[in-house]
């Protein structure tokens, strides 16, 4: 083949590829459905029951490192029990007619720690027994949010639970089948890692990412929506549910367990799908520098939060103290916590005096 012919053919093929590439208008998720109006609430209060899922980062990371890192299956790691804490929050919603409804978000990890939190450091246990808390939301099935489920179910086994439908068999066994799960350590010895002797007997709403009516959300009550994001997560977990509150005259507030889908991605979902969207605030773990490490993409998030104009950023848990400190220094409206966490019998080794976390015992009202 002559050089000129070859080059001509190449040019023609390149042109054809360009033209066809330009018309690759594949209908995708960008074609958003109509906007959803899920009502309003007067106010939302979040009490931090426990945000210390573990107390020592180094021990947790060593457990991960020794048994396969971020992609390993959480049910195969003999986690250090003494390092386990848990994540849980009590949400009090004030409805438009002034009534209060309480929702428990997550149930922590170490049942001894969670019993201490529910019975000694709050009156959650009493509220569960009396039925004042009749609804629980499981954000996702990570160990530190879900493995302490017994601490809730022992007081109210028939509690209504909303959870992602992206569960694994072990998750359901722990919830409903009195499972006692063990993992093998390096010497081959079996170590008990989680258990629940109080099976769930109430309504279990396993929520699909598509939502109840195909609009992406489950309406828990007027002004409160639960949305499952089907995202792959470290430690072989899949999917996280996020709570949205539409607070009258303020805007959208998100409450998350770990916020694995990404803070701005969940606000982006609200922007695309919710009627009269206005960002207002957020509470929860934001899953940024959870191991107190850094990455240039954490700087991206600081710039992005500024662009989204979120007015109240209340964070803790897997957000990472260093991200919260840097975000605060750069002008993000980080809500400061108090020193109440120091009255708890255990504290995180990375807690700092800057109080950029809402820590155990703190509250916030949106």
């Amino acid at each position, binding site marked *: 083949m002559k050089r000129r012919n070859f*080059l001509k053919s190449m040019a023609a*093929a390149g042109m054809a590829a360009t033209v066809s*590439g330009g018309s690759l208008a594949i209908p995708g*998720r*960008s074609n958003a459905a109509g906007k959803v109006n899920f009502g309003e609430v007067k106010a939302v209060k979040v009490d931090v029951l426990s945000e210390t899922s573990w107390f020592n980062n180094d021990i947790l990371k060593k457990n991960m490192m020794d048994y396969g890192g971020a992609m390993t299956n959480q049910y195969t790691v003999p986690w250090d029990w003494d390092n386990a804490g848990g994540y849980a929050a009590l949400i009090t919603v004030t409805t438009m007619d002034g009534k209060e409804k309480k929702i428990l978000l997550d149930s922590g990890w170490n049942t001894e720690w969670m019993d201490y939190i529910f019975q000694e450091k709050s009156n959650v246990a009493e509220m569960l027994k009396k039925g004042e808390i009749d609804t629980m939301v499981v954000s996702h099935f990570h160990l530190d949010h879900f493995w302490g489920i017994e601490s809730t179910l022992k007081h109210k086994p028939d509690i209504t639970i909303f959870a992602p439908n992206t569960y694994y068999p072990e998750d359901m066994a722990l919830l409903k089948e009195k499972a006692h799960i063990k993992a093998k350590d390096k010497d081959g010895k079996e170590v008990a890692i989680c258990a629940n002797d109080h099976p769930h007997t109430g309504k279990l709403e396993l929520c699909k990412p598509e939502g109840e009516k195909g609009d992406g959300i489950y309406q828990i009550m007027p002004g409160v929506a639960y949305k499952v994001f089907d995202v792959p997560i470290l430690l072989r977990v899949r999917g996280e549910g996020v709570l949205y509150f539409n607070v009258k005259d303020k805007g959208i507030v998100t409450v998350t367990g770990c916020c694995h889908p*990404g803070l701005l991605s969940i606000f982006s979902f609200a922007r695309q799908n919710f009627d009269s969207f206005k960002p207002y605030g957020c509470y929860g773990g934001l899953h940024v520098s959870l191991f107190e490490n850094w990455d*240039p*993409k954490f700087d991206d998030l600081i710039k992005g939060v500024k662009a*989204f104009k979120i007015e109240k950023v209340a964070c803790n848990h897997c957000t990472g103290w260093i991200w919260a400190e840097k975000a605060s220094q750069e002008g993000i409206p980080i809500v400061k916590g108090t020193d109440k966490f120091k009255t708890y019998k255990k504290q995180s080794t990375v807690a700092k005096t800057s109080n950029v976390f809402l820590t155990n015992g703190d509250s916030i009202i949106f």
Partner: protein
Amino acid sequence: MPNTGQIVNKYSFTSGIVSFLCISAIVCVLWYVFMHADGVMKLYTPMYGFSLVAVMMASVILMVKVLDFYPFSPSSSEGGQRLARGLILTLVTLALTLVLVYGFFWGFIGKFGVAYFSPDSIVRSGGTGAEPFNARENASTAIIYFSTAFLWWSLVWDTGFVKWPWTDSTPGVRAWSKTCAILILSIITYVICFHPHVCFLFYPPQNKAGVEPWWSGFAGTGSAFFGLGIILCSLAWVVISDLLWEGFPWRFLCKGEEGCFARGLITITGCLALGLFTFVVLLKTMNVYWMEPFEGGQYTDAPYFRYLHTGEIAGFCVLAAFILKGYFNNWPNWTNSFVNATVRSLLAFVIAGVIYVFYYSPLSTLILGKVPGIAQPDDTPLVWTMLFLTVILVHTEFFRLWPMEPNKS
């Protein structure tokens, strides 16, 4: 272009398919032993395992494309010889990988020069986040980036400059000279495209050692996945032009098969231009499907993921090209070379599409033990792709396709 139409008749596609299936099975076993979340070694942490695979692939490429097998014989055709040669070269490459990771990067460069190449040095330096797990992941990230720069330069040099300017030198002189030249260029590429990212993996950022990522102002992220995406997209065209187009159009630029300066220069600029074009087209296509990404977004909303994903797609194309060349005799081999090149390229894109669908399908979840879904920050198909490529390279280049007949095309 040479007419290779007669060779196709002698090629056994059945044995090619059987070989490919065997190689795929070997990759599955290796993945289970070394990477799988429920497997034996669980090295997919993810960066640690990624770095080992990247260096292993770089070592194979060093042996094959840079050293041209020096000091070993570049070819062997007898069955028994091929097996013995393959085993020896594989063992040498494995040893080289271990020496490079644990000796050169962790034990030498990281200990006596640039601390972030060694987990121990990071831990010893103390400060926030400097504990063994993070340290190993960060050191591995740096090693992966360096290996990427090395891979790009090795392959583009081999396709463009070929033996120039050491055409008349002895194999030994050429091997060492090429290695030094490629290393210098790799170091420059690494320093410009990746070092700023690695310096900002620490808190506070190491901004006296590296500038703030210079692309963050226009790329919407400080992550070096921006440069990684462009380099991998460009690498895909290097491989496609080398394997599927049989060196064209670059071969037009000088006589003979030994390369020249002009050919090298045009190959570099041409592949970079094609890579950049592909990078933009892929980003635009992703925008259609996932909408515009935004700064601070995560998963599919993240600019850094979009950039990485262009590289991941390019990786699938590279894998497809190697599969087509290695196990399907670079079909078709008709008389019109342009038609051959076009059909092969289209086939490679189709195969890459099939691999893409496989990687994100429940089947891959079952086989590779990954969590279903796309854009997980701790998962990149590049690791599996590179492992697959490494095994293919070992089989085709070291074992000369043993036990099947050597590829005659």
